């Protein structure tokens, strides 16, 4: 597996983490836990956008592995 593919895999698993955290943020009952989940989702989002930038760069460097 190339580095690009590995990074993509991590990226997609992080995206799934983020969406699950989002669900918890929406359905948690006390405002306190809801806020904690929302904050966590935002932090994960920051990591996701950094990784996305990295994937773009990798695809630019190795266009033969471009895809999805």
């Amino acid at each position: 597996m190339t580095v690009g593919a590995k990074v993509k895999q991590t990226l997609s698993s992080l995206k799934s983490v983020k969406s699950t955290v989002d669900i918890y943020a929406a359905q948690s009952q006390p405002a306190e836990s809801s806020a904690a989940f929302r904050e966590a989702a935002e932090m994960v989002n920051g990591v996701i956008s950094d990784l996305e930038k990295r994937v773009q760069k990798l695809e630019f460097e190795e266009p033969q592995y471009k895809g999805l």
Partner: protein
Amino acid sequence: MSEWLIVLLKSTAMFFLALILIRIMGKRQPDMGPFNFVTYSVIAVLTVLISVNVIRNLVFGLITLGVWVALPIALDFLAVKSKWVHDLINGKAIILVKDGKVMEENLIQVRYTGEELLRELRSRNAFNLADVEFAVMETTGDVNVLLKSEKQPATPYDLGKQVAPRPESQTVILDGNVLDEPLANLGLNREWLNDQLERLGVSPANVFIGQVDGTGELYADLFDDSQQVPQPKVKELLYANLEKAVADLMSFALETNDLQVKEMYAKNAGKLKRVMEKLKPYLLR
């Protein structure tokens, strides 16, 4: 009218009268003070005496009964208004053990022997007098015990652990019927519930009790006990996924030679670690 008919009528009437009077007197439960006990006893005895026609004059009987009902109610009202009256009626709580030392004078005041004190402490799970910091006899006669701080059960606060607030669960299905009000309290609806049940693979009619906890997780108990319900493991999975992502980012950081990229990966791994730290009390219990 023959005597037996009178007794029958009076008994029936007194039965309902007593029921109403006790309801009026309030919700005091059995842990009442000694005087309340006397009041209730007098009412009970009067009711019986009137019922079996021992008190021949109905009016006299009812007047006595009325006094014994009205006075306690009046005194209760006064006690709410005035601390002095309250102390007069109910007495004061008496301290039996203070700073780990038995107050012998107070024991004599409540006519307790050392043996009895120890028995009461034991019934409160304080088998060792050395563990007791403070014990007090309430006005109802109960003894309440405060253990020394090092002997008290450890709480998350003592351990320095952060825990998530856990509000009470709401029961959303009872006996196969969906309850709309608790669902609405959680900000959820029937569609959500049906969706969750479908995921568990059960029909609503098969659920005896369904509860939703504070994080919106559904627990279902089925009529059909042979059917296994998958218990939600989403939170544990989420935490494991986060852990895996951190490990991945670390290994990327090690693999790359580009210093800037290395730093980016390391920074993000740190970020995810903080997220894990933050969510740990909510995801793992």
